[in-house]
């Protein structure tokens, strides 16, 4: 699994969440912030977490990782943070 593959998967997941609000294709970078740039609601972050967990559940405990973050850290979360976490967790290194 590479960073580019995880980024593609996240792009697909976020596109489905944004659905109606999306005009054209979604372009995510590692710096894209879920809260500031994409303006996801907290309830949509839950949908994102559910989708990431469903996709990578065999390797990652994404929800447990999120639960260790403070609320302001969750608000500051970027696409790169999630990509790095999935990569780290799936390579067997401590999350």
């Amino acid at each position, binding site marked *: 699994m590479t960073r580019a593959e995880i980024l593609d998967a996240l792009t697909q997941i976020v596109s489905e969440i944004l659905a109606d609000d999306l005009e054209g294709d979604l372009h995510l970078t590692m710096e894209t912030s879920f809260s500031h740039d*994409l303006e996801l609601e907290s309830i949509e972050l*839950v949908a994102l*977490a559910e989708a990431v967990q469903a996709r990578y559940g065999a390797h990652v405990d994404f*929800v447990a990782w*999120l*639960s260790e973050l403070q609320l302001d850290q969750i608000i500051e979360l970027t696409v790169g943070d999630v990509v790095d976490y999935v990569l780290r967790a799936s390579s067997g290194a401590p999350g």
Partner: protein
Amino acid sequence: MSIEHHVVALGQGPPVVLIHGLLVGSVAQWYFTLAPALAPDHRVVCYDLRGHGRSARAPSGYDLGTLALDLASVVRDQGLSAPVDLVGHSYGGLIALTYALQHPGAVGRLVLVDVPLPPGGHDWLIEAVEGGVEGLLQALPGPVRQALSGGGRRARRTMARLGFLIGQSSLIADVLAQEPLSDEALARLPNPTLCLVGEASRCVPAMAHLAGLLPSARLQPVPGGHFVPTSEPDALQRHVVEFLSG
């Protein structure tokens, strides 16, 4: 009338249902805080109340009787076997108490987090009645208020949901018309109960009253105000995990 609920479930073990409060509550307040802490040892079920989060925008049915029926439908649809532990924040705590009174034997332990009495004495409700959606937003924890400022996509969606609940549903009328729970009935409720209260919350007297009334209740103050799940997630996790695992 029964409606479609958005349900999120985590973990395996004895069942516990987490019930959020009115207006600004949703499964998100548990999903990033208490739910993952309980999931290693419990089947944790969170659901969005009617009109909230991703559940159906119901125009009516915000009285405790209907909301307790909604909880019963979630318990049934999720196939949870008794006893089910219940954790309720704010109005969610009143839903938990109503359900426990209506279903003796079906509920195990109760955690009541900053519950208002009388039901219409709710912090958020007072803010909404006195100041509308803007008044309500002013009462939110800082990070949440910041996330809603600026008029972007998230703010628009949240405002639309709050506008529906406050302006187009019967929520406020239902809550103001809600009969208080009977002290006599509550005094007979056998469930071991943890009463968590924000030290700076308007709900301090209500929680002291409940803790004194319920036969097996313990009062546990935590720092901060009404919105314990998002302002004090560490204290919430510590006390609830210890209580439900003991």
